[in-house]
């Protein structure tokens, strides 16, 4: 196998055993970027010089026998809504086209102290709002498996970059499925950790009660390795929890005795693509063969998840994005009549349509006379959705669902109908509302050759269970060894 598609775990071993230098590995990534990137368009910026400087330094320190960090020499790509000092951070928005953050996000500090190589900034739906990466103000990203198809979103660039062999690992953020859905569309592993596992410091906020940073990787062990590097308490984010971070990557082979998996029958019925339902059903059967017991469960309020989400997330967004005023940073209109006109014109010019829609939906739901009917109602439904999971996890260890109701669809087909695109989040949104961890991993392909993903959900802080169960499936299949 060419090193471009090697697992991060294998690459790390090769680096440690000095069969491979960090500069050689970086060069292989850059070569693959030269080959694939003109078609895929995953990156908004590649820091060739900075990456080369870091790679040389890691090689020198390794040569000198210094102790190195847990990801020493491994290139990582960063979703362009995470602040990296010395780079631009644009959120794929005209509003932040020239924004140069004055500090590093917590996860960037973690990567730097692990001696990872920061390779470049990846494309996203503007401010992480969207499920196809088509809402980027700057460029379209294409699915490496089929260039006519979307990579998913919002973290589409990070998923496409790993899938196309341009980088072994990347970071995304997941507010309603923005890591798991593109991982599923691009045939790789993506994890949304428990809310609070990772500090959101330096993640440009979309919906603060739902946003989590998480890893993309080609294999389950790789994703576990990256997550254990990112996770941990940070006093600068008061929602980051002060709990020990297990060494998930070291515990993957511990057997899961009498694993009980819950499935929801409606997840395999109306509204789901037939091939997706069949493929995920085969994955359920495989778990049964591997010794798991499978039982039907009910999540009676999950079908209201999208409706609750599309009130809660825009409400929080309308508040979070109020900071973009054309005064402190970000786009400022060239011409305006007074201060209010400066705000209104700068924001009208700086934001794209989807961002404007969500800000306005949020402002509407929070406005006087509508707050109880919309926002408060959605928060109560959120509680019912979280209660459903608590109830389900009394009977089962994990819940298994399709990640997305369809495989990747052609570019341009869903842009005119925002509501239809929202419905694609139906299986992923409930985990964000409840704050529980979720993982997507490849489980097959459509007849048209597009990847299909399955989602595993666990109770809060049970990432260990997710990784071990996902690894069990991965070891019994070879989907993760295929690449575009």
């Amino acid at each position, binding site marked *: 196998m060419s090193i471009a598609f090697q697992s991060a775990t294998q690459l790390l071993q090769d680096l440690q055993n000095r069969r491979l230098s960090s500069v050689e590995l970086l060069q292989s990534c850059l070569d693959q970027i030269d080959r694939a990137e003109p078609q895929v368009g995953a990156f908004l910026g590649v820091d060739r010089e900075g990456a080369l400087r870091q790679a040389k330094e890691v090689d020198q320190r390794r040569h000198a026998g210094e102790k190195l960090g847990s990801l020493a020499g491994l290139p990582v790509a960063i979703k362009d809504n995470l602040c990296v000092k010395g780079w631009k951070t644009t959120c794929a928005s005209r509003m932040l086209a*020239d924004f*140069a953050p004055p500090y590093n996000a917590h996860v960037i500090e973690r990567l730097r102290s692990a001696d990872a190589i920061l390779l470049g900034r990846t494309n996203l739906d503007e401010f992480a709002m969207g499920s196809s990466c088509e809402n980027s103000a700057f460029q379209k990203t294409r699915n490496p498996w089929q260039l006519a198809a979307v990579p998913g979103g919002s973290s589409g660039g990070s998923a496409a970059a790993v899938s196309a062999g341009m980088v072994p690992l990347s970071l995304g953020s997941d507010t309603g499925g923005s890591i798991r859905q593109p991982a599923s569309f691009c045939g790789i592993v993506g994890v949304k950790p428990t809310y609070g596992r990772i500090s959101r410091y330096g993640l440009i906020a979309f919906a603060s*009660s739902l946003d989590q940073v998480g890893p993309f990787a080609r294999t389950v062990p790789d994703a576990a390795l990256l997550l254990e590097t990112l996770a941990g308490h940070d006093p600068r984010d008061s929602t980051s929890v002060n709990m020990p971070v297990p060494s998930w990557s070291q515990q993957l082979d511990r057997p899961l005795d009498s694993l009980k998996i819950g499935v929801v029958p409606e997840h395999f019925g109306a509204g789901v693509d037939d091939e997706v339902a069949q493929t995920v059903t085969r994955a359920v059967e495989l778990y049964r063969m591997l010794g798991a017991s499978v039982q039907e469960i009910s999540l009676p309020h999950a079908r209201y998840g999208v409706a609750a989400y599309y009130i809660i997330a825009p409400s929080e967004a309308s508040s979070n994005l109020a900071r973009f005023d054309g005064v402190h940073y970000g786009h400022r209109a060239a011409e305006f009549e007074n201060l209010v006109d400066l705000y209104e014109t700068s924001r009208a010019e700086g934001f794209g349509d989807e961002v404007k*829609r969500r800000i*306005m*939906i949020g402002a509407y739901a929070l406005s006087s006379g509508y707050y109880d009917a919309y926002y*408060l*109602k959605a928060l109560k439904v*959120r509680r019912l959705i979280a209660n459903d999971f608590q109830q389900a996890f009394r009977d089962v260890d994990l819940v298994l669902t399709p990640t997305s109701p369809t495989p990747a669809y052609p570019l341009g087909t869903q842009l005119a109908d925002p509501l239809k695109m929202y419905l694609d989040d139906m299986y992923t949104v409930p985990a964000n509302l409840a704050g529980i961890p979720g993982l997507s991993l490849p489980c097959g392909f459509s007849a048209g050759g597009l990847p299909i993903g399955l989602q595993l959900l666990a109770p809060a802080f049970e990432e260990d269970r997710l990784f071990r169960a996902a690894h069990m499936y991965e070891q019994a299949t070879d989907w993760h060894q295929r690449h575009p």
Partner: protein
Amino acid sequence: MTLSSDDVLKVARLSRLKVTPEELTRFANQLGQILDYVHQLEEIDTAGIEPMAHAGELLNIFREDVPGNSLSRPDALANAPKSDGTYFLVPQILEGT
């Protein structure tokens, strides 16, 4: 439920977004569809259910009140669209000054 252009104009003002007449029509249509969809929440009986504003539901987190480092003035102003090196500059707000 269709939103009127006036409804959208009101919410655009609240959001500090300038909208063109063409956008008013388009957004009225799209926002109306989204609101129609979320109305299904009314089917659910939520009597006696506590709203859940946050997944973590942590209690207040306190820290010692000690001075620490903060952004330097040049760093804080570095991304300002307009500044004089000391302050952010905005158009005149008060009349007659």
